[in-house]
C-alpha cells in the first residue's frame, strides 16, 4: 500500500522508459543469471524499462515481463528515433527569475560555454554554499538512517 501511494505521489518511481536491447538477450524471471528464462529477445527488441535492481533491469516486452542485464539495454529506442532538443533551456530561462538578485533578462541560457567564459565572481552565492555545508558526523548519521554502512574497498590495480 505504501509503495502504491509513493508510486502515485512520485510518478518517477513507477515510470516506464522506452528502451531496446542492444544484443540478443534472455529475458529472466528474476534478476539472476541462473533464474529461469521467460523468453529470448532478439537484438533491437523494443521494450519498456520499469525498474533497476543492481545490474538488472525489469522490463516489459511483447514476449513478456522479466529481467535483463542492465547493460544490454539502450534507452531512447533506436538512435534515429531519439528525441530532438528538449527546448528545456529556453523554456526554463523565460520562466525563471534569478534567485540571487542577478540580472534577469531574456537571453540568459543557464550554464553554457559563453556563461563560463564571461563569469564574474559571485561571493554572495559562495557564502550560501558555505552555509549549506554539512559536518562529517552529521553525514554519518544521515548515512546510518539510510542503512548505509561503510566498507573497505580497494581501488582496482
Amino acid at each position, binding site marked *: 500500500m505504501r509503495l502504491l501511494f*509513493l508510486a502515485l505521489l*512520485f510518478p*518517477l*518511481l513507477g515510470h516506464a*522508459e522506452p*528502451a531496446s536491447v542492444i544484443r540478443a538477450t534472455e529475458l529472466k524471471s528474476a534478476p539472476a543469471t541462473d533464474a529461469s528464462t521467460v523468453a529470448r529477445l532478439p537484438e533491437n527488441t523494443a521494450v519498456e524499462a520499469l525498474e*533497476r535492481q*543492481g*545490474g538488472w533491469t525489469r522490463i516489459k516486452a511483447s514476449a513478456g515481463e522479466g529481467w535483463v542485464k*542492465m*547493460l544490454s539495454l*539502450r*534507452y*531512447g529506442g533506436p538512435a534515429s528515433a*531519439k*528525441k530532438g*532538443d*528538449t527546448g*528545456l*533551456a529556453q523554456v526554463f530561462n523565460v520562466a*525563471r527569475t*534569478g*534567485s*540571487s538578485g542577478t540580472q534577469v533578462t531574456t537571453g540568459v541560457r*543557464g*550554464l*553554457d560555454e559563453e556563461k*563560463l*567564459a*564571461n*563569469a*564574474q*565572481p*559571485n*561571493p554572495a*552565492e*559562495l557564502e*550560501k*554554499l558555505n552555509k*549549506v*555545508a*554539512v*559536518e*562529517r558526523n*552529521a*553525514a*554519518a548519521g*544521515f*548515512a546510518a538512517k*539510510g*542503512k*548505509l*554502512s*561503510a*566498507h*573497505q*574497498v*580497494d*581501488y*582496482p590495480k
Partner: protein
Amino acid sequence: MSRALWLVALLSAAPAQAQFKLPDLNINKLLDTAKGVVKATHEINETEEIAIGRDVAARLLGAAPLMNDMRVQRYVNHVGRWLASQSERPDLPWRFGVMEAPQLNAFAVPGGTIFITRGLLEKMHSEAELAGVLSHEIVHVVRKHHLKAIQKGALTQLSADAAGAALNNVNAEARNKLIAFGTEMYSRGLDKGDEFEADRLGVVIAARGGYDTYGLPAVLQTLQGMNAQDSAVALMFKTHPAPGERLDTLAAKMQPVLESYSSQPQLRERFALETRTAR
C-alpha cells in the same frame, strides 16, 4: 627591467579579451628564471589549493547561482559529505551545491567543492545515482585532476613568473587571469584518461559508502539515451568521453566491484522525497 616591472608591462599589454594569450612567448621564455619555474611548478599545497578552488567556485557561481532550495542543498551535502568521508581526503572543507541550470552537468573544483546542475538531478532516479555522480566528482578532487590542469595551463600560457605569481596569489591581475582560465577549463574538459579514472574509482567510493554500485552506470545509461545534439547535454558531451564508451569501459574493468556491491541500497524513496521540490 626588473622582473616585477616586466610582469606589469606584460599583463597590461595583453588585452582583456585575449585571456592567456600573451604577446611574445619567446621573450617570456628568455625571462624565465630558475626561481620562477620553481615557484610555478612546485606542488601546490592544500591551503593554496583550497584558495584557488574558492576563487574558481565563486566564478562558477557567477555563471549559474545555487538552486534556491535549502532542503535539496542540504540533502546533496549529506550524501556528498558521507561519500567524501570514504575518500583519501576526508578532511577537506567539502561543499556540494546544486546549480540552478537546466543543462545536465557536474563540476569538481579543487579543494573539495562539487556542483551538479538541477538538470542532471532531475534525470536521476535514486540516491545511488546521485552518489555515483558525486563519487565521480570526488575522485577528480582526490586525484587533483583540475588542479593539475590549471597549473599546467598556467605554465604553458603565462610566463613562469606570472604563473608563479598567479598561483601564489601575489598579483591580482595575474590571479584573475588564472581563475578565469581555471573556470573556462570546464568548457574544455579534462583528459579522457582523467574521466575514465574518475568513473572507475568513483564506483569504488560509492561501494565504500554502502551504495548500490550501479548508480553511476545507470546515470551514464540515461545520458546515452539522450540526443547528443540536445542543448541540455551539449557541453557535457563535449567535455566527456561518450557515455557508451564510458559504460563499456566500466563493464570491462569494474565488473567485480560492480557485482560485489550491487545489492546495497539504492534509496529511491528517500531520493524522491528529498528532491521532490526540485522536480
